Structures are given as C-alpha cells and as structure tokens.
C-alpha cells in the first residue's frame, strides 16, 4: 500500500477500526486505518457493500466500532456521541425536515447550538447564498428538485460549522449534468472553507475529479490511499488496478536489471518501478496503441465492443490478453492480427505478493513477440 505523503496533521483519523454487525460472522470493516489531512478532501472509493457507508457512520459517531478509535484533530472522539462530535454528514438522501422551510432547515444547526432564531436565519441565508439557493429560502423541501434539495443539505451541513464534513454518495441520485455541477460546487466550497472532507463514492471519475487523495476500500479493508494520479499510474495491487479500469495484467517477473521478463520477451520498464521479482505488468487500456515497428508486440483481436465514441478491444498476446481503448475511426475485425505498442512510460508492475488473483488465462496467439521492446 502506498500512502499520500502530504499529510501533516490528520483532521480525521480512523485507527484499526473493526465493525461486525450482529448476526454476521465477517466484519464489515476489518482493521481499517484511514487518515484525512486537515482541510483536505479525501474520496473514499469502492464497490457497493465494501464498507464505505459504515466508515461514514463510524466517523460521524452514528455507529460505535467493535474495535479501534476515531480521532479528530488528534483527539480521541470514539465515545463522543454524534451531536457533540462536530462531524456533519450529507447523506445520499437530503434528509431535510419536511415541516420546515429551506431557511429553517439550514438554520437548524445554529439553533441547536443555542443561537437566536434571527441570528441562525441570518447565518443560514449566508450559507444558502454560498450554494446559490437564497432565492428558495421560503420554500419547503417538497417544493425542491433533487439537486436543489442536496444543495440545501450541503448548506445545512456547512451551517453546522463542522470540524469534518462527510458526504455519503450525495450525488448518486442526480443526473450526470447535475452531478458535474454539484461536484464543482463541492470543490469550490471545500477549497474556500478548507474543511476536512470525506466524499464517499463508487464513481472513480468523481473521486479523481474532486479529491486531493483517494482511498480505495474493498471488503472492509483499505487497498490503497494515494493521490488520484498516483492511484491510476501506480496501483498497489491487481484488485486496485481492476477497480480503476485497468484489467490488463501480464504475468512475469522483474529482472535485477529492472526489465520485465514474460512470454513476450524482456520489456523495458520506467525507472519508477522499484520492484524486483515476480509480478504482473499492468497498463491502462487508453495508453495502449495499435502500431508497427520493433517496439510492438503481436496480438490477435479477441473481442471488440463500442464504448461511447471509442472501441474497447481485447487482444490476445503471448503473455495474456491486453485491453485497448481505441480512438474513434479504428475498429479491427475479430481474429485480425495486429501489433500493439505498450508505451514504456505507462507500464507498471504489481508485485505478486499483493495479488490475490492468479495469472490471467492466456488464449492462443501467433507466436511470441520480439525478444525485447
């Protein structure tokens, strides 16, 4: 596992959190460690059922972990109830009080802190202006669209002046264009207020678009936490690579000279690959190109399907299937022989000790490629 290096003081820190629900043998969270740097935005990414929402509940205090501790700004808050913890949550549903106006919903946290109705409403109006909804202050929640309601929910969470803001898939029920708008709004507000934020999502594009760092969760464990670009370029395991849309994994090993030996021959690796020994070479589909020349490998088209304007191609090589995302205008036929260029700068080797999966099956191809490329 790699870790983001720019984490001076954790705003939120989960230490060895284990949660097992009654009646379940397997823990939902299994010794989870997670640090969010103060004032930064972490995206918690993972498939459905991996423990993302449970993590939010533990961090907010709505769920007490079986083991482990939650620290806010260095202070242990594990036993502090949610109402006194200073962690606000925006849920998947807006969770607005249906019997209160938008303004009074946003004024609610300030009222709970004992501020007068007038002061709370003044502060609420400022938060509504921040999310661009001050004109709708007098409306009731049922008079709002889904996107408007989530913006009100965000304004209400900000009105709580939280030490940590947790967002549990708040945009998942919105249409794509609205999600983009909400992402931009979240990024702007988060940068402006510098509030420590955790955004739970199963959308890797969303995570990469807004987060300072991304933590990938699977089966209650942290697979990797890194900056988005690092996560894509240098996945720590095959599970991470596959989740991030990089299914190509060619088995082999890294020689002491820093080259990757596999059934394609010896392939050059970038200097960033420090690993030596058995592993899988991974390369993102969009980095692979169809071409000619000595730096290419032979392949046979196994399948091709349209993916938007692009074509998602699977081509069998001597070392295993390679996934390619071809730009518009190129669409090879099935069983067609072609040559693929695997740019050195985009190659990465995942050490085998992190790989729970076996090597991918190798379908028949027309002989090995060049001895070295």
């Amino acid at each position, binding site marked *: 596992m790699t870790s983001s290096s720019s984490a001076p003081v954790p705003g939120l820190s989960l230490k060895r959190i284990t949660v097992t629900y009654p009646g379940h043998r397997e823990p939902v969270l299994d010794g989870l460690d997670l640090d969010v740097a103060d004032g930064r935005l972490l995206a918690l990414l993972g498939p459905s059922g991996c423990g993302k929402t449970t993590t939010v509940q533990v961090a907010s205090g709505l769920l007490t972990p079986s083991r482990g501790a939650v620290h806010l700004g260095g202070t242990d808050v594990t036993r502090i109830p949610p*109402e006194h913890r200073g962690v606000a949550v925006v849920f998947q549903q807006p*969770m607005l009080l249906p019997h209160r*106006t938008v303004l009074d919903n946003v004024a609610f946290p300030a009222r709970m802190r004992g501020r007068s109705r007038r002061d709370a409403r003044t502060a609420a109006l400022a938060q509504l202006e921040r999310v661009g909804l001050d004109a709708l202050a007098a409306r009731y929640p049922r008079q709002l669209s889904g996107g408007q309601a989530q913006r009100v929910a965000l304004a209400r969470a900000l009105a709580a002046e939280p030490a940590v803001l947790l967002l549990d898939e708040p945009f998942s029920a919105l249409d794509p264009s609205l999600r983009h708008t909400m992402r931009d709004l979240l990024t702007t507000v988060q940068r402006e207020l510098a509030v420590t934020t955790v955004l739970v999502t199963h959308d890797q594009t969303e995570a990469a678009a807004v987060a300072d760092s991304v933590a990938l969760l699977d089966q209650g464990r942290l697979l990797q936490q890194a900056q988005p670009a690092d996560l894509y370029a240098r996945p720590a395991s095959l599970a991470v690579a596959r989740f991030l849309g990089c299914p190509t994994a060619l088995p082999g090993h890294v020689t002491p000279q820093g080259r990757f030996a596999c059934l394609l021959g010896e392939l050059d690796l970038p200097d960033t690959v420090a690993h030596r020994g058995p592993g899988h070479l991974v390369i993102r589909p969009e980095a692979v190109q169809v071409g000619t020349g000595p730096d290419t490998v032979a392949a046979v088209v196994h399948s091709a399907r349209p993916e938007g304007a692009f074509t998602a191609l699977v081509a069998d090589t001597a070392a295993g299937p390679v996934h390619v995302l071809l730009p518009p205008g190129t669409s090879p036929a099935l069983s067609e022989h072609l040559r693929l260029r695997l740019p050195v700068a985009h190659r990465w080797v995942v050490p085998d000790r992190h790989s729970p999966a076996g090597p991918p099956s190798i379908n028949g191809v027309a002989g090995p490629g060049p001895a070295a490329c």
Partner: protein
Amino acid sequence: MLLAGRGSLADGLGRGWSLSAYEGFLHDPAFADSLLFSLKIATLSTTVSAALALAVVGAVSASRRGRAALETAARATLAVPHLLAASAFGLLLSGAGLVSRLTHAVGWTDGPADFPVLVADPVPSAVLLTYVWKEAPFITIMLLAAYTPAVRDLESAVRTLGAGRLRRLRHVTLPLLAPALTEACLLDFAFTFAAYEAPALLGATVPRALPVEAVELYRSVELDDRPAALALAVVIGMVIALVALAAATISRRLLRARTGS
C-alpha cells in the same frame, strides 16, 4: 344518528315533533354535570394515554427489539375487551379489592375503609385508569405504525447537526408523528366519550357519564324518557363531530406545514 335525531324530536311513542327533550336539558343541572363529567373523562384519559404512548415510543425508539417488544405488549392489551378490563379494575381497586387487601397485608392501610376510594367516586379514578390501560397501547400502536425508518433516519441525520435526545423529540419525532397522534387521540376521545361499560361499572351514581345516563333513560319504564335518551345520544354524536372537525382542521394544518402547499 338520524333515527336517534328523529326519536329525540318526537314523543315517547315516536310521534309528532317537539324540542322538549332538548329544552329539558337546559333546565336540568344534572345534564351539564354529566356532560362535563364525560368531557373530563375523555379529555384526561386521552391526554394521559397520549403522553404515556409518546414517552414509551420515545424511550424504545433506538432499539428494534424494544419496538417489537412494545408492539407485542400493546397488541396483547388491545385484545382484552373493555368490559373485562373494567371488571378487572373494579376487582383490583375497590375497597375490598385485591390492591386494598395487599396494602392491608403489608401494613400500609388499616383495612378497606382506610384505602382511598377509587371506584364509584365522583373523581373517576378507576374509570381513568381503565381507559389509560386500554387506550395508551392503542395510541402506541398508531404511533409505532407512523414511526417509519424514514423518521428514524431523520433523527439520525439531525444528531450529526447537534440535536440531542429531547431536541430530536421536539423538532423531529413529534412533528412527524403529530398527524398519527392527532388521529389516534380523536379516535380515543370519541370512544371514551361515548363508551358505556367503564363508567357504568366503575363510575359514581352522581354525576353519571352521558352514555350511562342515556342508557338508563332508554331503559326507563317511562316511555316519556325515551326522547331524552335519544337526545343524549345526539348530543354525544354532536360533541364527537365537533372534536372530529377540530382534529381534521389540525391535521390539515399539519399536512400543509409538511408539504408547504
């Protein structure tokens, strides 16, 4: 109600038209006493039942098992007929009843005469206790039905905004359960205002609850009392209709507050 209305405006044999039964109420202080007595029983028992039901629902709100146990207990109480409940409270609370004998046995009282009068007293303690025992579970079941996961999710959400237990009750639980509570209280009031068994078995001779008075008049050997008995039934119906109207207005306002329409 129409038949009762017609009968109340006729003579004892159901002939002719006359307001004499209603005019008689205006000059009969016992009628006002009975009306106030019935209103007191219905209002007090409904208020106490509602408060108790809210308290227990609030107390077990966080626990799924607690809610299930409460619902089971409430359903078990609902299965007991009112007549049986009133008889049981009579046996328990009368001067020679079980509680009186127990308090005597442990030395708290010197005998039945020393035990407070709870049955057949102008202060309708036994009637109220019977109704609260029967109606609080009814209101509890109505509240539990309205206490949906959506309400509990909202309670959780406002916890993260700084709302403690009492504030959640005040700002979330109560407003969201208010429509169900209003309906349950209306049904409870209507029943306890019009019910005969408990005040007949456990109430005093004077004042008598309106339904008891109506039944007694209806059973009277004097046929001339029958229009008054039916007029009392009409009065009972009118009071319940007025309360239903008030409840409907409150419900409409609550709905308007929730929908903003």
